């Protein structure tokens, strides 16, 4: 079998992988190899033709393809970055060996000094929700519908109900309306929307699309093609309330009920997975539990904004390059972070407590006037509001904490001011 050598091999050429590649190259890595199963660079961004990308990073309001293009253009100027598209990775292992295949080269092995996992995520399916009923044509995940409309130029159906108010679902409500379909309702089981507030306003309210909060789809009707869905109000335990059920005729059901980090490859390498994020446990350098394997973006945890994904990609790429070059110092000490009050998930989960660390946090419950408590230290932000549907970032300068050397664990929590 043919073997290729690389300083840094990156799996996935979406925003995380591209940022990691550029950052690894900047840090001086000799050969950076990016692998992706898609036909073009950019991951999911080429199908995200709406705007709202890059507000943090570029202070500009870009579309998905525009945001991706900035990275793609730069990657193409770098001689040391090699890209293999239409290439699927079959296996990885702890020795940072990658088994991959494509039509042109067949099966080949890559021996890398360090690896960056940037495989992104997939959508939850109807089956994971256990919605009872039949199995007709006309049920799509929101991202698949987006691919059909924006990349392939086909409309999935004419009368649409959307289950879940995640961002992709909200964006698709507007997109399908603009394409002439009737979006009859967006149904959300929680008492608050799943996506960003700006998307609720711009994609639903501006088009008079009803958002049914604390409702869910309880049954799927239709033999060949979808004919209707039953929708009911739910109680505080999220169980349908008898008597509130109504039937909404429709030929299409979109699901926007959440994303799952794609870590099947990570598991092959024995990388430790955090059940609360669904992604690898990482330290502030984005190194996983296997030395020399780094991870970034939605494979680590689901991000709301691509800007955060790029930021993590840069950290992972830089440290992967340093590792490959033998320059990455092992930390003097390691502190495990424990999830405290109102913390659903937290990245990084392990820190060495040097310099500044950016935390990416999801909370369990909406709260106002809050502070971040780390061990005994308190941090405040200008806008002290937290919501489960919005990831919060918090930069913590560890020099200021003056932690004792024997600290092995710190609790992170959100508390009332």
């Amino acid at each position, binding site marked *: 079998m043919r073997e290729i050598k690389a300083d840094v091999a990156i799996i996935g050429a979406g925003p995380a992988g591209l940022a990691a590649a550029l950052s690894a190259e900047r840090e001086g890595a000799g050969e950076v190899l990016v692998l992706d199963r898609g036909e073009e660079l950019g991951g999911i961004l080429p199908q995200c033709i709406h705007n709202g990308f890059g507000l943090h990073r570029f202070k500009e309001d870009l579309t998905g393809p525009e945001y991706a293009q900035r990275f793609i253009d730069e990657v193409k100027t770098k001689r040391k970055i090699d890209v293999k598209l239409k290439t699927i990775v079959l296996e990885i292992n702890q020795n940072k060996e990658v088994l991959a295949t494509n039509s042109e080269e*067949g099966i080949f092995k890559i021996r890398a000094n360090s690896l960056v996992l940037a495989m992104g995520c997939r959508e939850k399916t109807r089956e994971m929700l*256990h919605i*009872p009923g039949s199995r007709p*044509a006309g049920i799509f995940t929101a991202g698949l519908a987006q691919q059909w409309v924006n990349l392939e130029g086909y409309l*999935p159906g004419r009368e649409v109900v959307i289950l879940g108010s995640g961002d992709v679902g909200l964006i698709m409500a507007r997109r399908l309306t603009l394409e002439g379909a009737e979006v009859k309702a967006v149904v959300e089981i929680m008492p608050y929307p799943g996506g960003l507030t700006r998307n609720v306003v711009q994609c639903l309210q501006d088009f008079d699309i009803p958002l049914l909060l604390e409702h869910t789809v309880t049954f799927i009707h239709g033999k060949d093609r979808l004919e209707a869905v039953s929708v009911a109000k739910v109680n505080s335990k999220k169980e349908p309330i008898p008597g509130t059920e109504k039937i909404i005729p429709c030929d299409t059901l979109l699901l926007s009920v959440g994303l799952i980090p794609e870590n099947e490859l990570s598991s092959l390498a024995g990388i430790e997975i955090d059940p609360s994020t669904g992604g690898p446990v990482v330290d502030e350098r984005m190194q996983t539990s296997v030395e020399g394997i780094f991870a970034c973006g939605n494979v680590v945890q689901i991000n709301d904004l691509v800007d955060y994904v790029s930021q993590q990609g840069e950290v992972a790429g830089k440290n992967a390059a340093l590792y490959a070059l033998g320059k990455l110092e092992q930390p003097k000490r390691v502190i495990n972070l424990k999830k405290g009050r109102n913390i659903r998930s937290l990245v990084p989960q392990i820190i060495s407590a040097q310099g500044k660390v950016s935390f990416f946090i999801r909370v369990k419950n909406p709260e106002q006037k809050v502070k971040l408590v780390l061990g005994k230290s308190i941090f405040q932000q200008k806008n002290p509001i937290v919501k489960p549907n919005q990831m919060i970032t918090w930069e913590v300068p560890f020099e200021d904490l003056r932690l004792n050397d024997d600290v092995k664990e710190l609790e992170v929590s959100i508390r009332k001011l």
Partner: protein
Amino acid sequence: MKRTDIFDVIIIGAGVVGACIARFLSRYKLNIALVEKEAEVGFGTSKANSGVIHAGFHDRPGTLKANLCVTGNSMFDKLCEELNVPFKRCGALVVALENKELKILEKLKAQGEKNKVPGLKIIRDDDLFQIEPNLTRRVKAALYSPTVGVVSPYELTMALAENAKQNGVRILLDTEVKNVTFQDNGAKVVETQKGVLFTKYLVNAAGLFADEIARMTGDNGFTIVPRKGEEYILDKKRKELVKHVIFPIPQRQTKGVLIIPTVDGNIMIGPTSQVIDDKFDLNTTGKGLQMILEKVRKIVPAINDRDIIASFAGLRASSEGGDFIIQPSAKIRGFINIAGIDSPGLTAAPAIAMMVAEILKGEGLKLVQKDSCQPSYRWIKFRELSPEQKEELIKKDKRYGNVVCRCENVTEGEIVDAIKRGARTLDGIKFRTRAGMGRCQGGFCTPRIMRIMMNELNIPLEKITKRGRGSNILWGKTK
């Protein structure tokens, strides 16, 4: 369809039984048609079968079920070898959770031995928990049956039909039988929505609709009672949960809710058993899922509903009497009814085919061996090849290097092969190749598969269906 066609044998229903009969008869010098109302073979009851090849200890001695199950079971190694269909004799355990159930295990063992089921023994304690460590320690003892196996029921049905076709059987899909009449010369006239077919011998293997076909001929001798079963499939990452098919103590009408290590490497839990009126009701229900989870967790507590990646429901074509009905019509010579084929129908299917051939012979059909018949059927299964074989294949045909379905690692080459084998629908591709059957359920690969179908079949994307008429995937082009 030419009006002048006169067949020696027409088989109505391309489920596993019809396909087995067609393949068995294809070795003889006969002009045979296999007629199916669905868009693909196996798309009725067979595709929703749980895939268990039973040993034969569940059935009362002397019944057709007992005899044909034991004979059928013994035929599966050769059958699946010939057809390139994966089959695994994983063995089974019937578990007793209460001391009072131990007697039932003894009774099942005695019944099995009477039916000539080999290798039955009762095991307990370390012998049991060593081979099946995830069983609850509450299990008192289990009946071990080494000859129970697992197979993919749709892969088997499709391979049977495709091999029959290779040997000259005509397969008429999307062809629903509307009426059956008889001519004085003994010929049977089969009216379909696509035209009229003539045949000397007619085999009714119409599954759920076998009673309706019989009634067309004036035979009201039996009624099919649809009995629904829901099944739930767990992610492959939980495949180590059990290694044997796990049965509870059987109930009066059913074998109960099973835990099945499928031949594809998933764990499947189910089925329910619910008598219903509607022969088209394939709904899964919240109640069904809850009932299954409750029952299987009593035996293997580690089963978690979060691991479910797919679910489906199927209808068993049960007869009122309980046993298989396999007999020539009392009134009309050359017309055979095969009805009430519920569990263990899949296991019995190859034995049923032999029995039907004997009945046809008794009715006057001449069975003369063809000079050449090809019992072996092969196609490429990329994921089963060694790395060296894969490389060799990609060198010859690049399309085998292009992985389309990333969850199940199915290549473009295999999808093209599936279309050449006869797939016409998205589900037809899925059931032949597993593309779209993994954890993302086609979320990424559906457009790519449909583009390949568009090119190979030369049809527009909006005409592609999930499983036949009316189940189109797309509405049309955007403006």
